[in-house]
């Protein structure tokens, strides 16, 4: 009996491991914290940026997928696309809108902007993860992606704060942040309105995650590779 129990446990462990591997797909692999085994264990700025870019790309990838899945599942025939409202709550943050602006902005300012966007998304992502479960017959992939995006966003925020701590020379400016008041719209009784609110939120998420991804790459190429990626 003991042997069968042990076998079952082993089998369960293997199944869990394999399923985790398959589910995380392009997940960020964790790198050793101190690869060189140095006593004063500190990641270089390059490594921090590398990780941040990877995380941001992953978040954007997940956001694209969840948006596409949501659109496919719920937006067909509802004419969501036609209603180009799309005012995201982060619109009040003045972020560079083209390459010129991105090149001209000071890297510290850009870093703070990135932090601001990430912080502003903290709250909406939490509520997204919880409210999306109330959608009738929400696919499992959407559910876990929402949770995953929320987690990874937190990690990216931590990483960015580390980077800012390293790069920032002066005092930390007043924190950039936009509050989000879209929770009631995610809880509307009318299903169409509620789904449209989700659609908008996911659309904004995809856009902002793309922004973050791009800004981080620009910063990385600028600061680490001297504009020669």
């Amino acid at each position, binding site marked *: 009996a003991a042997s069968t129990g042990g076998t079952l446990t082993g089998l369960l462990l293997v199944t869990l491991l394999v399923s985790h591997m398959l589910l995380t797909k392009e997940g960020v692999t964790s790198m050793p914290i101190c690869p060189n085994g140095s006593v004063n264990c500190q990641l270089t700025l390059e490594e921090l940026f590398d990780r941040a870019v990877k995380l941001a790309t992953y978040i954007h990838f997940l956001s694209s997928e969840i948006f596409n899945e949501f659109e496919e599942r719920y937006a067909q025939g509802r004419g969501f*696309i036609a209603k180009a409202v799309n005012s995201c709550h982060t619109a009040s943050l003045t972020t560079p809108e083209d*390459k*010129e602006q991105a090149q001209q902005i000071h890297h510290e300012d850009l870093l703070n902007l990135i932090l601001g966007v990430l912080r502003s998304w903290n709250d909406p992502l939490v509520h997204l993860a919880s409210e999306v479960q109330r959608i009738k017959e929400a696919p499992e992939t959407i559910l876990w992606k929402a949770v995953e995006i929320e987690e990874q966003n937190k990690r990216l925020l931590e990483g960015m704060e580390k980077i800012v701590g390293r790069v920032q020379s002066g005092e930390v400016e007043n924190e950039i942040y936009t509050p989000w008041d879209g929770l009631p719209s995610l809880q509307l009784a009318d299903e169409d309105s509620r789904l449209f609110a989700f659609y908008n939120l996911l659309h904004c998420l995809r856009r902002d995650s793309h922004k973050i991804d*791009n800004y981080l790459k620009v910063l990385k*190429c*600028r600061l680490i590779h001297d504009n020669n*990626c």
Partner: protein
Amino acid sequence: MDLRHLLFILALICANDSLSASDDLLQRPQISKCRSPEMETFSCFWTAGNAYNLTVPRILQLLYKKSNEEDWKECPDYITSGQNSCYFNASYTSVWTPYCVQLASKNEIHDKKCFSVDEIVLPDPPVHLNWTLLNTSQTGIHGDIQVRWDPPPTADVRKGWITLEYELQYKEVNETKWKELKPRLSTVAPLYSLKTARDYEIRIRSRQRTSEKFGEFSEILYVSFSQLGIGCDHCTEEVEFPWFLVVVFGVCGLAVTVISIMLSKQPRLKMLIFPPVPVPKIKGIDPDLLKKGKLDEVNSILACHDIYKTQLYSDDLWVEFIELDIEDPDEKNRASDTDRLLSEDDLKSHNCLGAKDDDSGRASCCEPDIPETDFSASDTCDATSDSDQFKKAAEKEEDLLCLDRQDNDESLPSLANTDPQGRHRNTQSENSLLWAPFGDSLESPRPSVHTQMSNQNSLTSTDFYAQVSDITPAGRVVLSPGQKSKLGRAQREGCTEQNFAVDNTYFCEADVKKCIAVTSHEENEPRVQEQGYNEDGYFTTESLTTTVANFGASTAAAPSSETPVADYTSIHIVQSPQGLVLNATALPLPDKEFNVSCGYVSTDQLNKIMP
């Protein structure tokens, strides 16, 4: 007449089709697509459609509006991107801002589209494709190349504004289907195992990472090995071996052969091709039963010997089954061990651990006919013991219980540690399981269990082993006949299932271990009324300490109820986790009755002896 009718109908249909087709050609102007090649500018393209009134050409306008603006503005540049297009340069482009464009003429809106620039990125194709030879195979028939290219010049990859992914496709010149490589981020790609005799075409396209749509293909790169002079002309006509056919027919033939063999009635052929796989088997034990069977059954199996004895020789004919080899030098060692174990000196008289009784039924479990001579422990232990363990006949019985050396090594230390009885420490090494031995007699092979830990010789293992049910705090073991009967029953059942070709009664300790452990765990309550002696009645006492707590508990309750077992309690120390150390206690026997000829006590005698 009918034919003409048919033709007329056909003509009508065709006319109808052409008319309707021409109707389809009258299309509204549409915006076909909007595209940004580098996320810095974008263009929109449209189709003019069929003007209803061709005399007055319609003037189409593209109006656009950013989401945060109110007014529709006209396209700033109708020319740069070609006809029916609108080009927005960098100053008009805001990447993450939603735009709406609409195609209108005068007051009529034909089409409208809304998007943001980051969603419509379709990069230009890569440029400057070239290839280099990596190496060729020894025969020169195949070669590897590496293809390099540059990112599209419009995309600003160096500043990290856009990250591109590339997909390479290649094919032989006269093929129609392109083969693809996985999208990659780097601008180099190796191609392996190309035929040097053939020419290849390569093309590459790119897309923004995390996007799904690819841009246009690059120009085709031609790869020709003959340019480098490494073409293998004479091997162009290699005949491709029909591997596929060979494999298919081979598999079919093999399948047919196998099936015919399986179905053939010739057992010899079957045996030759598919020899039966020997399954590890312990005589007298059904491994399946051990795995799945209930504890009772398992216990009974282990006490199988006993059962069979009772089955076959219901009365105390156990004597016939016991055989000890007194002359064996090892036995003398054992005697010394026994001395240590036994408190009484008269135990020396019990050196003879087994009666050399020729007609003792050395029946293995469930096998009435037991060859007298051949007590080969190896038979019993073929399943679990290593052959090295079996030295000679003399020592065969040591391994009768198939003590696994490794296991013993592990378990014995624990036993030693927990032995409260110091003087038994030496003997602890001699693990012994308390058996309900089957009445197999040991002739030359002495029934001793060799314990690896101490490397001492054998226990005074005898034919008969009683199941230990309790252990007194003093270390006395109380054997439970009730268990045995229970065991016996189960053993009977278990044994009868088996084809017992065993010629001895020992089970491998590994199996017994479970039995004992389980049994001992179970049989806590003092069923030890009679001494737990074996019906067969012969025990060589050896000290065994038990590490089982419940043993201790039970033994506390048990001891007073009965006198412990007979003079000899042969015990094989159970391997981990529990070990049994029996403290030999002499039975208060009337000597006359006690057949101490070889230290065996008959069942009857024991019955009388025990309270």
